């Protein structure tokens, strides 16, 4: 309905769609990659995007059909309140009902969504123009008031928002017109549109407090939502993106047991089994009619070595452990190859600010032994806490095994998943953490490495790092930012008490009948936004 009025800024004409258009017009792949790289994207990333765009071009979307999707969690904590979302199932579900102001594309660049456009003054005062003619599922029109309500509620502790820390710097959120919102920040942040593209900042209707059903502007309407059981989404015929979505209905259920989830896929009970462990990927690939959808993203498991506690405050012990990580073994044994080797810093190669110049730290037992001897902790038990039934546990076990070879006595403490994040992670000198992909280098560094952050995992304090972080955030020139982020990566690699052996891929399994999936590295199933992009081949 609105195609004709706003042709220039429809999402089809950005990123992949843009590239698809270019390809259609006869541009060569090499040209495109060079073009994307010059726009600041790592070459590897650029080629991935071009490749997937080429694949997508070969297929034409079809309308109709219903699918059943099995995600990896399901509990009474399931919610359609964007502020309370807590896991990937929630994100996946909310993206079927809501839209955000912005949307992150395959290179994690923010693109306009419910905001037609956005502008800033010194990265401190931001103005968002809200798209006209968008309607909520109940028929009421989207206005600036809804946006203000959706954003401002995160700041109220009673809301229980998981994104409160991100919302607090938005000092003022005001409607400056029926379709314009102004956000004044406490300090400059060039990445605000990125933040607003994350799941928690999806837009809801003004005054919504009852979240037993979801009323949004998204591609599907909420027909049924039973926490811990399932949700049924039916096509929104009035969706503002013309022609979308393709499916008539999506039923989302949670099957926490991964074997059961895969079995449900293989028996034909579901079409998608989200978040499959690498061990199971083998099985999917040998079955005809099924495929693994890999999203190379920046998620990682890390050894957290607190600088404020013994024995982990000992720098030699930290170095010993960093050198003890057999990254290749972890990549192959734990992740079956669905991972890339990391270098004890958190920015992964798909990120536009990844610093390729940093030398790779190798698996070096001799060096580890040397540092261990110097630390004085040889043959004393070193407890490392890790979570049961997770790849963290597998990694810990491999570390433990490598330690036996050099006289390091690692005592792996397996802790239950229940309460792990509140009671174990960072609460002992040595723990394992697991960090989901984040939309920007700034968010990642701010959350987990800034000296005064609640989740400064290793209690690492570096004035230089903090300084760089603030400067880089305010910087709008990409080249200068890249240089600063490069230095920060080097600092973390050398000084921080964090060992990051590999970045692992997110794997989803699906029937090959399901088409249209493209990787967006914020999370599985197209950064959770698969619902408006996929179709079912008849």
């Amino acid at each position: 309905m609105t195609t004709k009025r706003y042709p220039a800024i429809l999402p089809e004409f950005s990123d992949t769609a843009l590239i698809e258009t270019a390809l259609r017009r006869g541009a060569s792949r090499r040209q495109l990659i060079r073009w994307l790289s010059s726009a600041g994207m790592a070459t590897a990333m650029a080629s991935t995007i071009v490749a997937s765009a080429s694949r997508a071009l070969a297929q034409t979307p079809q309308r109709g059909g219903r699918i059943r999707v099995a995600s990896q969690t399901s509990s009474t904590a399931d919610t359609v309140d964007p502020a309370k979302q807590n896991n990937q199932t929630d994100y996946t579900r909310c993206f079927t009902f809501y839209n955000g102001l912005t949307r992150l594309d395959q290179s994690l660049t923010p693109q306009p969504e419910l905001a037609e456009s956005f502008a800033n003054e010194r990265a401190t005062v931001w103005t968002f123009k809200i798209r006209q003619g968008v309607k909520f599922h109940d028929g009421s029109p989207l206005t600036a008031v809804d946006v203000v309500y959706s954003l401002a509620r995160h700041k109220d502790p009673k809301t229980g928002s998981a994104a409160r820390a991100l919302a607090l710097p938005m000092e003022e959120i005001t409607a400056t017109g029926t379709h314009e919102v102004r956000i004044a920040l406490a300090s400059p942040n060039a990445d605000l549109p990125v933040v607003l593209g994350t799941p928690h900042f999806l837009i809801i209707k003004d005054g919504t407090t009852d979240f037993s059903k979801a009323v949004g502007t998204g591609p599907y309407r909420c027909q049924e939502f039973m926490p811990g059981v399932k949700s049924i989404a039916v096509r929104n015929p009035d969706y503002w993106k013309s022609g979308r979505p393709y499916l008539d209905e999506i039923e989302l259920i949670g099957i926490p047991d991964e074997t059961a989830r895969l079995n449900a896929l293989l028996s034909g009970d579901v079409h998608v089994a989200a978040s499959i462990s690498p061990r199971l990927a083998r099985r999917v690939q040998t079955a005809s009619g099924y495929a693994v959808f890999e999203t190379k993203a920046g998620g990682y498991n890390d050894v957290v070595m607190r600088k404020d506690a013994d024995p982990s405050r000992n720098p030699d012990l930290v170095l010993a452990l960093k050198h003890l990580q057999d990254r290749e073994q972890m990549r192959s044994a734990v992740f079956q190859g669905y991972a890339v080797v990391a270098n004890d810093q958190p920015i992964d190669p798909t990120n536009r600010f990844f610093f390729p110049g940093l030398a790779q730290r190798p698996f070096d037992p001799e060096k580890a032994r040397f540092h261990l001897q110097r630390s004085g902790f040889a043959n004393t038990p070193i407890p490392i806490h890790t979570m049961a039934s997770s790849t963290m546990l597998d990694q810990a076990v491999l570390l433990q095994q490598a330690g036996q070879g050099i006289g390091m006595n690692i005592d792996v403490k397996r802790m239950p998943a229940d309460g792990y994040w509140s009671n174990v992670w960072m609460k002992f000198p040595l723990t394992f953490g697991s960090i989901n992909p984040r939309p920007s280098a700034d968010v990642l560094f701010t959350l987990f490495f800034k000296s005064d952050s609640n989740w400064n995992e290793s209690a690492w304090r570096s004035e230089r790092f903090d300084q760089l972080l603030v400067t880089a955030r305010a910087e709008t020139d990409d080249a200068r930012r890249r240089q600063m982020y490069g230095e920060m990566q080097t600092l973390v690699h050398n000084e921080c008490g964090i060992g990051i052996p590999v970045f692992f891929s997110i794997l989803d399994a699906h029937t090959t009948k399901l088409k249209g999936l493209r990787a967006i590295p914020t999370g599985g199933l197209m950064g959770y936004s698969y619902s408006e992009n996929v179709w079912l081949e008849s």
Partner: protein
Amino acid sequence: MLMLGMILRRVCGGLLTLLVVSVVVFVGASILPGDATEAILGQSASPEAVAGLRQALGLDLPAPERYLRWLAGLLTGDPGISLINRMPIGQLIGPRLTNSLFLAALTAAVAVPLALLLGVTSAIWRGTAYDRVTNITAVSLVSVPEFLLATIGVILFAVQLRWASAMATPVVDSLGGALRTLALPVLTLSFGIMAQMVRMTRAALLGVLDSSYIEMARLKGVRPARLVLRHALPNAAGPIANAVALNLSSLLGGVIIVEVIFSYPGLAKLAVDAVETRDMPLVQACAMIFCAAFMILVLAADLCSILSNPRLRVR
């Protein structure tokens, strides 16, 4: 008269036990580290955010007061609302309880007659190869971890043969549909609970078969089938009913593994979720239901013993 008094006494005792359970569960959950706010906020639980949310949820009140409020609510028929998703507990539990009862009833309908049949036949043919094979099979099946049994079942019948569904749904439109969706979970559960019932039926029946009145019945020319069904079984009903009750009582709360593997929306998973998210009103409500179910089953078993024993029924 005798029975009415007994029932009344038992119901009072049951209520007392419920109270004990609620206190124990409350205290037990109170000593757990973490609370619902941390479950809601996850990794973003800053002390300030936690404090704010705690106040909003009423978790800042002292524990005894929270307990008494909950108890008062329960007595007036209001089990409260979930801390996690603010839905009324009744609304959360209602459909899940129905589902659990449905699965439990189906399982009971399959397992109990089968167990009785196997128990009775192996008692009649005691010491024979049949007896031994039944016994060993029952024990072997119960000793295989449930998740393995369920997974093998799914891979064999759902993935390979496509006879059954890998997921169980409580919605049943036809017999064929019910077989497809529920056969695997029902069988898995049945294998788990049958062994003890089979063994108990056999043991109780053997005790009776050794008694003088069975010998007498034999000497009256009563044929084996009638001997077992009319003469022996009613007198063994007490202990058998007890074993059945004890095993069935686990079908509401103790089937977490089956619910997870077959993604069946039942009460056990709800209870485990509630514990993990420290959703106290929900934990309490589930505990009450499990306890009440246990009491009711045991009471039913005792009634069964009394009805089958005139010595207790009529003076």
